[in-house]
């Protein structure tokens, strides 16, 4: 006991300094990392960039859907069309659904679309509106013309809904002066 006691007295001072130093370093590190994290987490451009990617993904998927139909079960395809759209377009598709189903049934056409490239051209995250371009390759079969492949190009207007981004308008970009 007598040999252990004296160092006990001197040690706390050195330990205190070291502990204080370590604590200060750790606190500084914690503060720095908290600041770095807050800085990264509150970046506006990250939210914007992610929203742009969501628009692109939704646009690709929905534009592809709207160019596909299964001749054997057109009603299921038309239901998917409705799911892919919003606003007036959605309303129009709902109203014409029965007639369209009949028409597709009679024609027996099956169309399978592949989006070959797409790009978001406009995005307003506050208004929840966007525009996107897409090029497609559509394989059609079962029609009077037999199997054929078409290239198509579209501009789509998208709107944000509770269920993600949906197509509000879809316009084929026709070639000027060609009359098609």
């Amino acid at each position, binding site marked *: 006991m007598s040999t252990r006691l004296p160092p006990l007295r001197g040690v706390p001072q050195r330990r*205190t300094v070291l502990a204080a130093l370590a604590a200060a370093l750790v606190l500084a590190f914690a503060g720095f990392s908290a600041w770095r994290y807050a800085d990264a987490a509150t970046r506006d451009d990250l939210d914007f*960039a992610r929203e742009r990617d969501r628009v692109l993904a939704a646009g690709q998927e929905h534009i592809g859907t709207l160019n596909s139909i299964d001749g054997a079960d057109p009603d299921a395809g038309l239901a998917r069309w409705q799911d892919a759209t919003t606003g007036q377009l959605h309303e129009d598709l709902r109203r014409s659904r029965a007639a369209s189903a009949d028409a597709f049934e009679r024609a027996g056409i099956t169309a399978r679309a592949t989006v070959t490239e797409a790009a*978001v051209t406009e995005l307003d995250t506050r208004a929840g509106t966007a525009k996107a371009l897409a090029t497609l390759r559509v394989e059609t079969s079962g029609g009077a013309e037999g199997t054929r492949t078409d290239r198509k190009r579209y501009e789509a207007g998208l709107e944000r809904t509770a269920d993600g981004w949906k197509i509000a308008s879809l316009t084929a970009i026709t070639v000027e002066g060609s009359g098609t």
Partner: protein
Amino acid sequence: MSRDSTAGTAVTAREQDPAERAEQREPEEPGQKGDPAAGPPEPGTTGESAEAAEPSESGGAERTRRGTASRRLRVAGVALLAALLLAGTGLLVQAARLNGDDALANRALTDASATAAVSGDVSNALSKVFSYAPEDPGVTARDADELLAGRAREQYRRLFGQIQQRVVAQELTLTTHVVRAGVVRLDGDDATLLVLLDQVTERRGEDPASVGAQLSVTAEKQDGQWRITDLKSR
């Protein structure tokens, strides 16, 4: 001697106490305050020798209890610092993950002016190199040398070689308009675009004919100018 010894232990206890408490409670403060606090009582030789001489039973027990208590505090302090270290590291990793997000690497639309610049440069380049006039097809060739690079230059030369003969022989005029252009990806000096074109062909004495063309364009910024490096029909 015995009075001295008790006084000595009391002093030791008193001077150890604040220093240790301070160390445990606010580890960062004693760095400045701890030293002087421990300083003033400066244990005399009497205290030390007295302690060494005969520590009383109760004093020993007290010290042991205090020792255990302070050890606990010390462990708690170390645990707290370790937790802070871990949390800090976690936050840094998280911050790096957010900053390295692929969505952020793509500056298309996020950087509006850069997006407009690449879109404009590429649209200009395409309408220049895909427009030929029978009067001077050489202009187009020179434009192509300036605006195309890498694979696109080779692709274009092959294409242009065929067309040049027809242009001259049939007095063909080809005009290309960019109808729409969208930036798919913009990452520093590399970009990918989707460009929708209308190409109008005119033969002397005939009505012009239009066809649509869709291109995926890869572009690279060299010396402040965007050059097309790859073309892919869509």
